[in-house]
């Protein structure tokens, strides 16, 4: 019933149909926060139209994005963990790091606010209250940019929450979206970036409990993966993308992206 030549034909059709396109493209290793918020869908078509270079985005946590770029699996890196980015460049994996845009982190929590943090502009004090009342706190626990920021904030408080890991301090080891789903599900506080929060669709009755602290500043940077280290890096097209996103058009496109009337990212390339 399965004539052999039909089977062969079928397999060839399945395997050989356009797997790789001959178009110009770059691979952008980036974070879930930028991709999930819809920013790339809004700005990349403009770049693609102007230059004819298609941008393929791999959206993972900052830690994994940097790791992938270190392996040469990507042309450009756009993430948000400045110390880790500078280390990436210093170790010769990247050419140079540039500021692109910023937004801010916020702490969200259940409406009952068991740790009584509401309306606070002091992230450190809020975290201390959460720890003292042993209120549930969901941590990314995945070495992402957001996780690194959270660790830095805990360090300021002098509290080591990981000592209580598994009790009130819960490390999900997942992306921002999965962690927000978990936090909403179990009524836990969590740190998130504003872009992800605004675009997140499963907020339940959760609210922002801490915002506006200068320590919650969230800077994004862009780096060309070093072609001297990884010769396969498409440096001209990658550089074209970096020049565009730092230039007037790219910066304007970032500023123009709004969701529910709110601007999600603020361009600040120098």
């Amino acid at each position: 019933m399965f004539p052999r030549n039909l089977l062969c034909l079928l397999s060839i059709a399945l395997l050989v149909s356009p797997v790789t396109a001959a178009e110009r493209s770059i691979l952008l290793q980036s974070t879930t926060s930028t991709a999930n918020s819809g920013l790339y869908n809004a700005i990349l078509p403009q770049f693609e139209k102007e230059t004819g270079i298609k941008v393929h985005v791999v959206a993972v946590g900052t830690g994994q994005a940097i790791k992938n770029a270190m392996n040469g699996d990507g042309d450009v890196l756009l993430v948000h963990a400045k110390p880790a980015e500078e280390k990436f460049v210093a170790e010769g994996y990247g050419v140079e790091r540039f500021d692109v845009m910023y937004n801010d982190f916020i702490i969200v929590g259940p409406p009952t606010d068991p740790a009584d943090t509401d309306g606070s502009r002091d992230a450190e004090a809020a975290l201390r209250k959460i720890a003292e009342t042993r209120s549930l706190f969901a941590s990314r626990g995945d070495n992402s940019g957001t996780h690194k920021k959270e660790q830095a904030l805990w360090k300021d408080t002098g509290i080591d929450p990981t000592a209580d890991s598994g009790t009130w301090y819960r490390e999900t080891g997942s992306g921002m979206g999965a962690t927000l789903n978990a936090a909403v599900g179990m009524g836990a506080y969590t740190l998130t970036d504003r872009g992800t929060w605004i675009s997140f669709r499963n907020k339940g009755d959760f609210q922002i409990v801490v915002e506006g602290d200068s320590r919650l500043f969230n800077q994004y940077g862009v780096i060309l993966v070093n072609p001297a280290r990884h010769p396969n890096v498409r440096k001209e097209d990658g550089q074209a993308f970096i020049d565009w996103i730092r230039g007037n058009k790219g910066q304007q496109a970032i500023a123009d992206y709004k969701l529910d009337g709110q601007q999600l990212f603020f361009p600040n390339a120098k």
Partner: protein
Amino acid sequence: MQDFGGAFSLAFSLVLSADPSLLEIILLSLRVSLSAVLLACMIGLPLGTLIAMARFRGRSVALVVLNSLMGLPPVVVGLLIYLLLSNAGPLGWLQLLYTPAAMIVAQTVLIFPIIAALSREVVEQLHTEYAEQFRSLSVPTRQAAAALLWDARYSLLTVALAGFGRAVAEVGAVIIVGGNIDHLTRVMTTAIALETSKGDLGLALALGIVLLSISLSVNAAVMALRLTSARFAYA
């Protein structure tokens, strides 16, 4: 939960609207997983038949290993293939990472043990039945293997379907080696994972319903094929 009813109607309207980006995702899912099943059968069926018919030292060890490989965690397979195909890995020069080809490779590795182990079971049972006849007619091994595979073809179709089911439903491997890149390597399961992470649970569930319907259609198509050919065979 308010999501269930909404998800079903959303799934319906998604399919009815024939949204081009959804179609693209569905077609890629089918292309990747069907290709993986074909490749896995090309490796798994001969391997299963070989182990079914041959008697060699360490055969029971081989059986235990093969059977446990059926439980390969997709995320581990994804990681292994990533490390091989990465530009820092030994096969980086192939430039396959973040392409559908890499996803096909990962799913093939994931399901060929299932095809091999299950077909071994099927063929071995048949072989016990036929062994004496083969011996009395002194049928060459190669011919005997072909006869066994042919006579077991309907059970082997079910084996292939088991492999397809596993391939089309897994997310752990394809999300690592494919990268879930829009319009390039996004398949149904990675799209579902993405919508879940965006908190759009209704859309995620709707996509899940669409994926289930695809599995259902593939299974129904194979069943129809089987019934038609059986009718021809006895006509």
